[in-house]
């Protein structure tokens, strides 16, 4: 699967939070027809998703980088600000600025897609992509997937996506490092 499409699928899985959208994104992530995921109880997956990431009770693994990286666990603090700086450098900003933190997982995944596209036309954007992925997302996504994974049923679709996301960021950073070494 085209790597941007794959990141988009991750983004959509974590963004919408409804079973229909999750199911549709899951099919894209796992490269399966929706029909092949019939054995998954998507209602239960939706409840699990909300318990882990959304609420209304305290989410067990909030999908915000600050929760994992900020020394004072301050959301919308320095970590969010650094991510915002990357977006600004790329000429990006949230359409509803101030309503959600820039270091929310689906927002960062969306930025990855855009930066990757921009990098295809202007290699300067590769550096920004590296900053976002290797120097930031790589620092928190494994912590996030580990925390979420410890609260989720191993056979769940959410768990499978978490594993694939973890694998994706690790592979992505490895390939970035390898391409640098070649240079």
């Amino acid at each position: 699967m085209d790597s941007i499409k794959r990141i988009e699928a991750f983004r959509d899985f974590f963004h919408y939070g409804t079973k229909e959208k999750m199911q549709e994104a899951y099919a894209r992530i796992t490269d399966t027809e929706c029909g092949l995921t019939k054995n998954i109880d998507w209602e239960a997956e939706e409840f699990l998703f909300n318990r882990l990431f959304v609420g209304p009770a305290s989410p067990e693994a909030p999908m915000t980088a600050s929760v994992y990286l900020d020394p004072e666990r301050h959301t919308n603090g320095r970590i969010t600000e650094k991510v915002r700086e990357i977006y600004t450098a790329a000429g990006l900003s949230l359409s509803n600025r101030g309503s959600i933190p820039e270091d929310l997982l689906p927002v960062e995944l969306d930025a990855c897609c855009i930066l990757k596209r921009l990098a295809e036309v202007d290699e300067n954007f590769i550096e920004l992509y590296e900053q976002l992925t290797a120097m930031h997302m790589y620092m928190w996504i494994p912590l996030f997937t580990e925390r979420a994974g410890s609260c989720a049923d191993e056979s769940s679709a959410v768990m499978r996506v978490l594993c694939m996301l973890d694998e994706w960021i690790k592979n992505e950073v490895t390939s970035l490092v390898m391409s640098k070494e070649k240079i």
Partner: protein
Amino acid sequence: MKKDLLKTGGICPLSRRSFLKSAAAAGILSSLPAGILQAAEWERTHYEGDYETFRNACPRNCYDTCSIKSYVKDGVLRFVEGAKESTFTGGALCVKGFSYPRRVYSPDRIKYPMKQIGRGTGNWKRISWDEALTEISNKILEIKKKDGSLLGMALDKYSGNFGITHYGVEGMMSSLGYTTRFVGTPCWPAGIDAQNFDMGNMWCNDPEDIVKAKYIIIWGGNPAWNSVHSMKFVYEAQERGAKVVVIDPIMTQTAAKADLYIRIKTSEDGSLALGMARHILDKKLYSKEFTTKHSKGFDEFAAYLKKNVTVEWAAEKSGVPANVIRQIAEEFASASPATIWAGYGLQRHTNGGVNVRAIDAVVAMTGNIGIEGGGARYGHLHTWGFNYNAMVQKQPEGSVGYLGKDKIKSEFHGPEGEAQAAYSDRTININKIAESILTTNEPPIRLLWVACKNPFGQDFDRNKLKKAFDKLEMVVTVDQFFNETVQNSDIVLPCTTLFEEYTVNVSYWHYWIGLNEKAIPEQYEAKSDLQIAAMLSKKMNELEAGSCTFPQITDTKVWMEKEFNDGIHKLFGIESWEDLKNGPRKAQLPSSASWNEMKFGTPSGKYEFSSDLAAEYGHTKLPEYKAPRKAYDKFRVLTPHTQFALHSQFNNIDIMRDFNPEPFVYINPAAAAAKGIKDGETVKVVNKTGSVTLKARVTDIVAEDVLVLYEAWFGGKTDFNIQELVDDESSDMGTFKTGAPGVALHDQFAGIEKA
């Protein structure tokens, strides 16, 4: 362009600056009394960077109603400080106030409208606002069709947000039809009635004038925790030579700052006050001028004292030694001005109202009413004369309601929509919610709307409340955070914090007004109470034209503007609300003393030691002794406010949890030894209402027959709920001014055993 995130933004040790910016440190420093060390001036004078600043006001149910200055950059609330313009707020906030940015951006906030599939299951689905409002509107229309009225829809709202425009929630209910309303107040109604019987209104001196007092008694209150800003005036009075006496069953932090701490047997405040009055009478230390010129019934009161009260009797009842009673009576009567601050705790008893009357009588007979630095301080509502534009809404054409004589009453404003209507809302005592939901029929309460309140955290008899909620067909809760009420709801709607809306705030204690500006966008999909009402109105009218009259205005600034009137402008010396952008303003008062003209609001126009109105409401005319509630278990249970929360708000904020990680029961060493309980051991506190299991703290801050558990929901992994131990026994007063009596929530009893 390249920047190394790890170098520029990664983990670095806390610098001195960041220590000082820590909210907890700031809160502690802000309440420091004068001493060898003093709190440095806040770093409020020179912040680096281009911040936009906004005016905000803390809307919590707190004496202090702080004026806040908020600093915003990149659309993000970076930090807050107390407004310097207010001499009351004085540039500092309490620990809760300083934690606001963490509260606003907590990952735990409710972000979207959500629906629970099976109440209490924890299976939540994210739904759109449209879906949520359609489901609620359909339920409202279904109830109307089934019952022929909307009395099956009830509102449970109280003090979670005291922004004036939040009375729009009541307006939303009226705009739908005649509904069921829980009226009264859990907090302070017995004291309100007491002061109304005595003086014709609840009206306290400006708290800033306590600096002029020569003798201060803080009776049944703990401002060092619950009104930190008032403490600086108490300290200043002390520095000027005033004596500060604290009377309380608990050795509080305020007591620790006093010159004299007097431990009283709980609910015996009346006997102590009457004992003091008798001694003042015997020593002829009362004010002849006040008692003859400005009061009614003093001779009857004196006769009552002579016949029924002795200092020795008072000592036996109250547990305060006779010589101490004589000492404080003489000192109080000899000092001028002298003042008593009657805390809300002392009136949460079956004899709470009459006890406040006895305390008022001591202040009055010594001539300390109506003078600066004096007064029987309880609270006031003199600055609350807004339009209540959002609240006053018309029922839709043809609405059918209750045919009884009930009228909505609230301590904050007059009867709502009192214009002569054939029908009215159905009113039920807010302090009997569980019982009422279970027993109200024709029609039963089917749909409950909860806003600005966490009934499971604040209402009494948790187990009965759970049964009551189980009877409801639909529960809609509007809140910022998950709690036990949300857990027992079907739909939760996310609401904004104070920084995400416009409103205006005043206090029931000080005399300042503060503008509350929208400083940041609504977080995630949160909406203000007013926006929700406007959106519900739109949906209702889409489904059935004319079914809701609430104006479909979603701009909270427009609503805020409509609350101002000439009276407010004149009182605060402003041309328009825009003047408040420059900072909070204080009411322009002829004197800092309430009743300074000695024109009382009573039927006689005088201070009434003997009140016919009290008798009309079933009380004694005089503030006679009334015995406390009979104990129904071994230990008395007291459940006062904690320092790190305001009821169930703030408890869940991570930095508060660092200081206040779990609930404890505080038990006296002798009582603990008798039970074989050691400090830190897990114990079970049980009574007829329920039980809680938690750790014990062995301490002599409490008397041998008393257990103290700080109130409210602690969230996180604990299922502690103090309402397991509190029944809904009524206090003696409250019906006159607030429509229903209060709750005797400190007249509770329980046993304790090792778990």
